[in-house]
């Protein structure tokens, strides 16, 4: 269980840093067979990544995450992340705070993602 925390920590840092500062890099976390549900809506990876790229400037704060290894396959890890996203609107004083709860199932070299 110890090793899954390190993988999870690294993943969470890389993913949300990419979300805030390198939107085009988000696609690298997924593969063609990745499954994405965004607020209940199923999305293809390409649709998802272009939606992400078009979001307003964001600043993410990860509050916490839980991770578990999926027994029987050492390379699979489930991660549940919670935190907040701040979007800057066009007017500098307009902010939206969104609490997000995401779960990721990391399979070696691909990921299944709920948002």
């Amino acid at each position: 269980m110890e090793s899954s925390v390190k993988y999870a920590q690294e993943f969470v840092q890389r993913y949300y840093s990419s979300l805030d500062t390198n939107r085009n890099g988000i696609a690298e976390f997924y593969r063609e067979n990745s499954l994405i549900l965004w607020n209940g809506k199923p999305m293809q990876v390409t649709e998802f990544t272009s939606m992400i790229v078009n979001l307003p400037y964001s600043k993410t704060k990860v509050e916490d995450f839980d991770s578990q290894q999926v027994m029987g396959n050492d390379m699979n890890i489930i991660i549940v992340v919670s935190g907040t996203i701040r979007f800057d609107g066009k007017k500098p004083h307009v902010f939206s705070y969104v609490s997000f709860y995401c779960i990721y199932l990391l399979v070696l070299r691909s990921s299944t993602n709920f948002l």
Partner: protein
Amino acid sequence: MADYNALATQFTQFYYQTFDSDRSQLSSLYREESMLSFEGAQLQGTKAIVEKLVSLPFQRVQHRISTLDAQPTGTTGSVIVMVTGELLLDEEQMAQRYSQVFHLVNNNGNYYVLNDLFRLNYG
């Protein structure tokens, strides 16, 4: 493969019905390899998990599901479920919001919880 959304919904409803009426009966839904993450604690195995749930400091509880998302995980018959909802405990009037993730695995036609991650949601 059977409809994973229907399975996820049925299993989740059954899980919470059992939890809310008598949570000591949850043992049939876990195995030795099952893991529970609960508010920072990590536990493994039916005995440890059920002991934890039974020892939670409330008598009565009611789960109310707000959202439920499910996906197949690519391993035959396995399904991952993400639930958000509210908990009403004992005499409290204010419900607490929570999120829970279940990774359900098929064992000879019976599903059990392999991974369980629970968090209360604040703010």
